């Protein structure tokens, strides 16, 4: 969103603003200096006030966020297991990753999940936003209905529902039976279990859709009118006006949804009964990390896994930003 770009440089306006102080000559006349010290003390007062407003945030940042990040980096070089001391073992945890078949399986599962479900979800979101943007009557109602799954999607209750819907005697198979088709036990079949989770993620396309809708609003109607006058058909208008002007928002949604998808946990945990089964076909990276850290209490190794996850997410986010130069269009 354009809001974000603005937000990254919040101080620009203020830090350059304000009248320039008087020249700081050592023997400047008395009234000037007193005004300067006055301004200085006002500024100091403002800084102290800011500190008082920010104190919870700063404590939280240090104790809850940055401290633990550094600690987990340290732990990743140890064999810490909650009981006993943390012994420095160097890169052993990272070497162990190389021949950990379950880790490799979980990376494969997670990549498939992320790189299949996110594009599908965004395509769905964009398509629906396009349809709804044409001044369809009852837009708020449709928008609410499509947005609802996004709100509920992360909950345990929905995961339980999914388990039944795609179960052997579940809703999907009941409907298929009406057409005389004998369905699989989708959840319990290693080839299909992950697909049901991908569908669940696609189902929550509502929140990117709302963002797309807000973006489509920003495109001036006169562009479309001008193109129509010039004889551009709907397909042409879509690819030559809508898509280029929407690329910043597509990019924003892409970055966000990829980061989110990498961290998916609850649905896979509930649908697979906490194990990532059948035969590790739904063993998300986060599930494996939970298993190592909080079931086996192998916290040194789990910390290394956590840092690898951070690297992977950071890498793809950076890659996204690099590639955005080639396809994201930021107007003039």
């Amino acid at each position, binding site marked *: 969103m354009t809001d974000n770009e603005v937000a990254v440089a919040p101080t620009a306006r203020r830090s350059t603003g304000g009248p320039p102080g008087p020249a700081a000559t050592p023997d400047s006349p008395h009234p000037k200096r007193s005004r300067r010290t006055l301004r200085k003390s006002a500024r100091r007062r403002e800084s102290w006030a800011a500190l008082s407003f920010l104190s*919870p945030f700063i404590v939280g940042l240090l104790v809850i*966020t940055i401290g633990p990040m550094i600690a987990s980096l340290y732990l990743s070089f140890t064999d810490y297991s909650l009981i006993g001391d943390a012994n420095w073992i160097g890169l052993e945890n990272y070497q162990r990753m190389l021949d950990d078949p379950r880790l490799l399986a979980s990376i494969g599962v997670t990549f498939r999940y992320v790189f299949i479900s996110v594009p599908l979800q965004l395509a769905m979101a964009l398509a629906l936003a396009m349809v709804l943007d044409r001044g369809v009557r009852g837009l708020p109602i449709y928008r609410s209905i499509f947005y609802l799954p996004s709100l509920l999607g992360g909950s345990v*209750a929905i995961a339980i529902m999914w388990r039944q819907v795609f179960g052997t005697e579940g809703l999907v198979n009941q409907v298929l039976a009406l057409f005389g088709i004998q369905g699989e036990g989708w959840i319990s079949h290693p080839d299909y279990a992950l697909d049901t989770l991908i569908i669940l993620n696609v189902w929550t396309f509502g929140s990117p859709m709302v963002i797309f809708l807000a973006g489509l609003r920003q495109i001036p109607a006169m562009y479309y009118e001008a193109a129509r006058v010039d004889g551009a058909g709907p397909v042409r208008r879509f690819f030559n006006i809508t898509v280029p002007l929407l690329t910043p928002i597509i990019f924003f949604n892409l970055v966000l949804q990829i980061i989110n998808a990498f961290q998916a946990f609850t649905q896979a945990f509930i649908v697979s009964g906490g194990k990532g089964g059948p035969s590790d076909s739904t063993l998300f990276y986060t599930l494996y990390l939970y298993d190592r850290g909080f079931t086996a209490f192998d916290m040194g190794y789990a910390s290394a896994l956590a840092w690898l996850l951070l690297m992977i997410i950071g890498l793809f986010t950076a890659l996204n930003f690099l590639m955005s130069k080639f396809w994201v269009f930021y107007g003039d």
Partner: protein
Amino acid sequence: MATETLTPVSPPRRRRQRRDLGALRRLLIHLGLILFAMVMIYPLLWMLSASFKPLDEIFSDPSLFPSTFEWRNYVDGWTALPHPFHTYIFNSMVIVAGAIIGNLVSCSMAAYAFARLNFPLKGMLFAIMLATIMLPIHVVIIPQYILFNNFGWIDTFWPLIVPKLLATDAFFIFLMVQFIRGLPRELDEASQIDGCSYWGTFLRVIMPLCVPALATTAIFTFIWTWNDFYSQLIYLRDIDLQTVPLALRLFLDAQGQTSWGSLFAMSIVALGPIFGFFLAGQRYLVRGIATTGIK
């Protein structure tokens, strides 16, 4: 290109033809949308109806209408676990209330400082704050667990509430910064000329105007905390402290296939409050997503 010919005048006959075509197209679009919306929410409606169905009907009948209304599912489900279900609802409510108060107080304070005050390192702190929105919880959860374990806070609600009091949900800081930036600065200056301190300005001028942003924060905090499974799974192992999502998981593991009816009934109970907040706070939710861009 041809922006000078913005309003082409088409002959009246063609226009009427086009309007008829337009009406047909609109109808088709509505039909398509309604059909699609039905497919989307069919599982939800079906679960609602299944929560009233006897067991054999759940596994045989995909229709939305139960043949008989089986209230027993709700009664059985409520008492199926070691504690009656309202214990879990109460536990969830305590955590949610703490999280909402924490986020409202700590995030609005930080947001005011970022939006209105000047201080050293402001740009850097703001950038770090934005970065933490994207930080996966998985990276910090293990040391956090060790830390709270040292405090003796495992199997208490503190690990789920205290971080909120320390403004760790940076998303809400960002949301409120955006909102406060939209308020006219003259209001601050006027109140300061009238002798308000920074705290006075914050409490008497900014906060009352921030009610919409505070409402968005409260609603999102409610939904996210109510839905949260991961951190509750990690910090709450004591059976007396289980929350609604943990209770549902317990139910699923303990009863499995034998009592889908009551499992669905309790799932509906769990989704009810979110749905209620969704209906009541839709305006704020949609605005919140549109201004910050995060679900």
